[in-house]
């Protein structure tokens, strides 16, 4: 068995037929990739590892770890001794800390179910195209997390009144001249009882892919606010201003026309997720029978709750409310379904549109931004109904 300490992932070619367009034969993925602990994931990048959940993952309220998306800006730690691991807390605190894992685990444990979504999920649908991982629908998943409250750790250190933001740094291996992956959240969110430093996911110790031994879970916020391999917490008098806060992971404060660049002073750091729904089935281009078909998917809204999901089978002319699955918790997605019996053969455009408890509803297009963050346009799937 591969020990937790000495693997992140390994590579090999497993002889999968090439599937790329003949026009880009040089780009064919001529091998599938073995990533221990991950199966049937869409490989958006192998180095650094970015894996997308397949559409089948939207059939489960809790996402199994082997289907949970992975997003990395750089490699995670390769080899460390858990007994030597330290979580430090410094900056604007009365008493800087250096905690062992045992000391951390002596604090009260709490659990949280949270839908975690990469800010760039859906970027591949953005028009015009923007640089970055071309995620489809599956850079999102729902996990049951367990750990200690960040607020309890900060209380041990004693946050000074000058402490306004809390930054996180993980054990990522920083390549070249790339800035380290450090981001901050406001102290109010850090002190919220639902914001955790987790050690467990879905009832098991965190896997390396998801930040073993410690990761932050900042519920309802973009995935980048949930630092993996957490080793350093700093309480700051103001927002951290490194690359992954500025210019990275920012959103325009004013509506832009597609392709337009915002003024830097008219952007703010990304925080909570927007309202969103996706159709997981039928798949794009599916050939269906004119019998009963299930249109199904998931909907989520960050810190807000999903109020309703509507489905259109006529390209958005009429909308019908879908059935929401009873499984729900704050910060989690709702699975939904709609039983559809097409009246006649032909081409259909299926759509889904979610509304949340803050009154937000998905629009026909996402709010344009040059990094393709928070893509949440009404989802569309074209299908063919035949005899």
């Amino acid at each position, binding site marked *: 068995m591969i020990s937790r300490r000495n693997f992140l992932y390994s590579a090999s070619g497993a002889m999968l037929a090439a599937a790329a367009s003949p026009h880009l034969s040089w780009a064919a993925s001529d091998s599938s990739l073995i990533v221990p602990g991950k199966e049937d994931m869409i490989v958006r990048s192998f180095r*650094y590892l970015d894996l997308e959940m397949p559409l089948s993952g939207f059939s489960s309220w809790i996402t199994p770890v082997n289907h949970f998306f992975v997003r990395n800006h750089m490699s995670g730690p390769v080899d460390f001794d858990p007994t030597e691991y330290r979580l430090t807390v410094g900056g604007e605190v009365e008493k800087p800390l250096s905690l062992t894992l045992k000391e951390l685990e002596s604090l009260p444990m709490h659990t949280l179910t949270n839908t975690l979504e990469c800010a760039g999920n859906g970027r591949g649908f953005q028009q015009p195209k923007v640089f970055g991982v071309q995620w489809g629908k599956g850079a999102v998943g729902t996990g049951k997390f367990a750990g200690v409250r960040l607020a309890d750790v900060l209380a041990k250190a004693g946050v000074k009144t000058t402490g306004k933001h809390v930054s996180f740094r993980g054990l990522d291996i920083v390549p070249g001249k790339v800035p380290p992956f450090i981001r901050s959240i406001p102290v109010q969110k850090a002190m919220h009882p639902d914001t955790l430093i987790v050690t467990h996911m879905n009832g098991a110790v965190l896997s390396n892919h998801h930040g073993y031994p410690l990761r932050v879970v900042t519920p309802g916020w973009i995935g980048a606010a949930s630092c993996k391999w957490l080793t350093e917490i700093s309480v700051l008098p103001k927002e951290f201003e490194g690359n992954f806060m500025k210019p990275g992971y920012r959103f325009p404060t004013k509506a832009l026309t597609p392709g337009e660049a915002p003024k830097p002073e008219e952007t703010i750091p990304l925080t909570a997720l927007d309202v969103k729904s996706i159709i997981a089935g039928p798949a794009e281009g599916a050939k269906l029978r004119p019998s009963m078909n299930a249109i199904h998917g998931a909907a989520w809204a960050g810190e807000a709750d999903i109020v309703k999901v509507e489905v259109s089978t006529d390209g958005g002319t009429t909308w019908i409310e879908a059935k929401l699955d009873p499984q729900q918790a704050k910060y989690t997605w709702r699975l939904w379904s709609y039983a559809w019996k097409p009246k006649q053969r032909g081409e259909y455009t299926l759509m889904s549109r979610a509304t949340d408890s803050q009154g937000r509803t998905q629009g026909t297009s996402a709010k344009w931004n040059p990094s393709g963050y928070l893509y949440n346009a009404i989802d569309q799937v074209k299908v063919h109904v035949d005899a």
Partner: protein
Amino acid sequence: MWMRSQNVVRIFSVTALASMFITATAILPNHVRAVGPNLPEGSMKAKAVTECMECHDAHIIVQQRMSKAAWVKEVEKMTRWGATVAPEDKDALVDYFSSNLPVDAPAYEPAETAKVSKSPVKKK
């Protein structure tokens, strides 16, 4: 070098690969860093392999569909982050990417990870 590595990888049987996976260590070893898609042919391919694949594999590159102006910004960003691109190579490198991966190129079809549970995994 990467071509040789790719050929070595290709001749493994699935069983041998499973064995390799069992014994492999954490970081992606340099000698298999090019597993997956290739970069397009062209006079700047060698430069792209040397500078981009020092950190990345080709997946993240070949999925992009961008204008020349966007490729300029990306090459400049990666140069700031450690890639070595001489001023006289910059335009050619941008042309290489923007001509092979333009906005209207056919969509890239990504690979999937294997079903590990079906591999003949043995305990070490």
